[in-house]
């Protein structure tokens, strides 16, 4: 096996709690996106397109669906005999057992894995961002600058800069200071959570950080500041393409809508930078006689007999006769039955919306007992996965539908199934 110059470690263990019921049973990176993808497809495809053949995926929270989805890495051409894709959950050892405490601790617990591959550089990624990036270019910049660490940054509007982790850098891109959500930002370069480290340097810092009992073992909060304190060379590498953290209901919805409104920015049709995904084994989609589809994206297995307008329809989803789906996302296998109308809704995997339901942003006098300002905003309504929704109900915008805490159903949510989707 040729020595790996750089291997990638994808942090995919977070619960993604701001996505509410969408991450009840599945880890955030496994959440469906863009009609035929899962969020993690972007990080995995970026790796394979960048020629990175050894990829560790660090999992912890509800990994079953994610593990099933990733499988042996075949869909991303990462089913290699040597290297390839490895799923790295927490484990027990002679030294004891620990869940991953923070992003840096997760890598710390896998030092041995990385050492086995003996890379010069380690790329640390998040599994829940939508973007296309050639990490080779970033590595070349890292090598050329003889940096110890290179952090991908993007320019954000100055008035939003105080919401991000901001890198202050000199003219040559050398980072002088890192500020988490600064009140008065000195720069508008926000960290994307994509790091290249020279492995020897990172390895030492991970061990030192682990010994510090006060540390929260996080890259942004602990490792980067410690490296800066030590006077190491940290490079800010500016990335200018489409990038979105889909960590909230609103950003997930918005990033899906971007495919319709700004298709050139993310450009899924680029044959030189394919986004790979697990094949869904469905026939081409069928459009019925009286169907109408406007300004939408669809994929295999979809059947449309009603109307889809400015929506993202995932594999195997069905819109029945007379039903209307507007500004919405149907996740795989979702069904909207006859006469229903939904607007600005996200419908979870295999959820069935009964007949003549009205739900979402434009509904007047809808029931408000599911409104959930904690998760939903801007009128977006979310239906959890595996639900059966009653006929003829009206649901107000900003709702989140799921059975109650005890798992009990109601007159609106008639049934709820824990799903194994693959």
């Amino acid at each position, binding site marked *: 096996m040729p020595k790996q110059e750089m291997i990638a470690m994808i942090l995919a263990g977070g619960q993604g709690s701001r996505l509410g019921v969408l991450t009840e049973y599945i880890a955030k990176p496994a959440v469906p996106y*863009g*009609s*035929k993808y899962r969020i993690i497809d972007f990080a995995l495809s970026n790796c394979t397109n960048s020629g990175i053949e050894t990829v560790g995926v660090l999992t912890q929270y509800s990994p079953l669906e994610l593990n099933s989805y990733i499988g042996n890495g*075949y*869909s991303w051409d990462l089913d290699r005999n040597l290297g390839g894709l490895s799923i790295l959950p927490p484990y027990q050892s002679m030294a004891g057992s620990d869940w991953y405490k923070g992003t840096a601790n997760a890598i710390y617990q896998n030092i041995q894995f990385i050492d086995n591959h003996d890379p010069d550089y380690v790329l640390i990624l998040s599994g829940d961002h939508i973007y296309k990036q050639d990490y080779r270019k970033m590595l070349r910049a890292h090598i050329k600058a003889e940096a110890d660490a290179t952090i991908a940054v993007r320019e954000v509007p100055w008035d939003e800069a105080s919401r991000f982790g901001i890198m202050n850098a000199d003219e040559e891109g050398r980072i002088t200071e890192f500020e988490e959500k600064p009140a008065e930002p000195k720069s508008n370069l926000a960290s994307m959570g994509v790091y290249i480290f020279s492995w020897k340097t990172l390895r030492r810092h991970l061990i030192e950080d682990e010994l510090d009992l006060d540390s929260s073992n996080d890259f942004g909060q602990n490792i980067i500041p410690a490296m800066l304190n030590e006077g190491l060379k940290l490079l800010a590498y500016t990335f200018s393409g489409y990038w979105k953290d889909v960590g909230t209901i609103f950003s997930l919805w918005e990033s899906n809508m971007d495919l319709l409104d700004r*298709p050139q920015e993310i450009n*899924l*049709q680029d044959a030189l930078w*394919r*986004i*790979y*995904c697990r*094949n869904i*084994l*469905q*026939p*081409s*989609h*069928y*459009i*019925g*006689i*009286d*169907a109408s*589809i*406007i*300004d*939408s*994206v*669809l*994929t*295999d*297995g979809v*059947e449309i007999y009603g109307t*889809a307008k400015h929506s*993202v329809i995932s594999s195997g989803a069905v819109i029945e006769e007379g039903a209307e789906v507007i500004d919405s996302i149907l996740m795989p296998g979702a069904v909207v039955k006859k006469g229903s109308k939904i607007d600005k809704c996200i419908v979870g995997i295999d959820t069935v919306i009964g007949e003549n339901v009205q739900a979402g942003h434009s509904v007047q006098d809808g029931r408000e007992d599911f409104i959930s300002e904690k998760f939903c905003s801007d009128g977006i309504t979310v239906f959890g996965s595996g639900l059966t929704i009653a006929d003829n109900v009206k649901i107000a915008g900003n709702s989140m539908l799921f059975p109650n805490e005890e798992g009990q159903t109601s007159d609106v949510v008639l049934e709820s199934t824990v799903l194994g989707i693959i």
Partner: protein
Amino acid sequence: MLIDAMGIILADNSRVRLGELNDARAIAATPFGGRYRIIDFMLSSMVNSGIKHVGVLAETKYSSLMDHLGTGSHWDLDRLQQGLRIIPPYMQSEFFRSPNPQDITGLHDFLKHSVHTYVVVAESNIISNMSFTDFVADHKNSGVDVTVMYNHDSNRLGSPNISLSFEDNKVVDLMIDPTDPESDCSSLGIVVLERTLLMEMLDQAIARGETLFNTEFILEKYQELTIHGYENNDLTFRINSLATYFSASMRLLEKGVLQKIFKGENKIFTKVKNESPARYLKDNQVSNSLISDGCDIIGSVENSVVFRGVNVGRYSKISNCIILQDTVIMEGAELSNVIIDKDTVIRSGVRLQGSPDYPVVIGKGVIV
């Protein structure tokens, strides 16, 4: 249950012609149904029945076929033992011989290295999602030499039609393209027999200098061997002419057909292309059609099957058409009853019209 059978798929059939569609590719490699090739149906049926060792007997024109099948990974047939093997004419024996595209010694070699008791031999020109489990079990239980799958196909069109006459379920006569058939039982080109029996038959044929292998090669021995029939009641389309290719494609649009063939427990596998989802822009008008990933649809499409990566331009009108992969239909073109091969460009304002029995075919890669 585990099935103790291997499979042989015949990639081509010298009696079947699909016009320009198979000028450059085997019948097996002909695109069908939006995202598939014809062989996907037989290959998936075998894989879904638990058959893990499949040889595809290729004659000529097998570049597309090799490209499509690759390592067999899309059918989960990229295995250390067994798996998928293409048996091209050249590799049939270790020694270089005068090339005979229908040389059958390679098939014999392939069979020799298998460990299974039975072999299912199938022509590739059947569109169906079937299981061979009961077929093989029935053959095993009956103890006969050969079992042939047949059906009563009222939709039958075109040649070849291998008509079978039975007495007590035993084949007693076989007619090819009879004008006045004695029987309405028509072979589906699928037989099962013991591997060692097939090897013996091939041995004898090689000794006699025969070179042609197809299912009739086996069925014609109905006087020496006991050949039983096995009736298949699945939804099945025979592709043996351009007209049947066209009508089978159109029947996919009928109610319930998609569900029966594609959406049951057993899936049809095919090569994955990683196209982006299809985009429907404003002003499109689509009705009763199958559309595939990677398409950009602005124009009007009805009663049609549209393959991957097709662009349907503004104000264009497509009806009763089959549009193969990566074709571009430019603004205002109008097509009805047309089959367009892949990588073709139909320019603005072009009008083409065929009929269901005689669809117009536009060859691969041309600009009209």
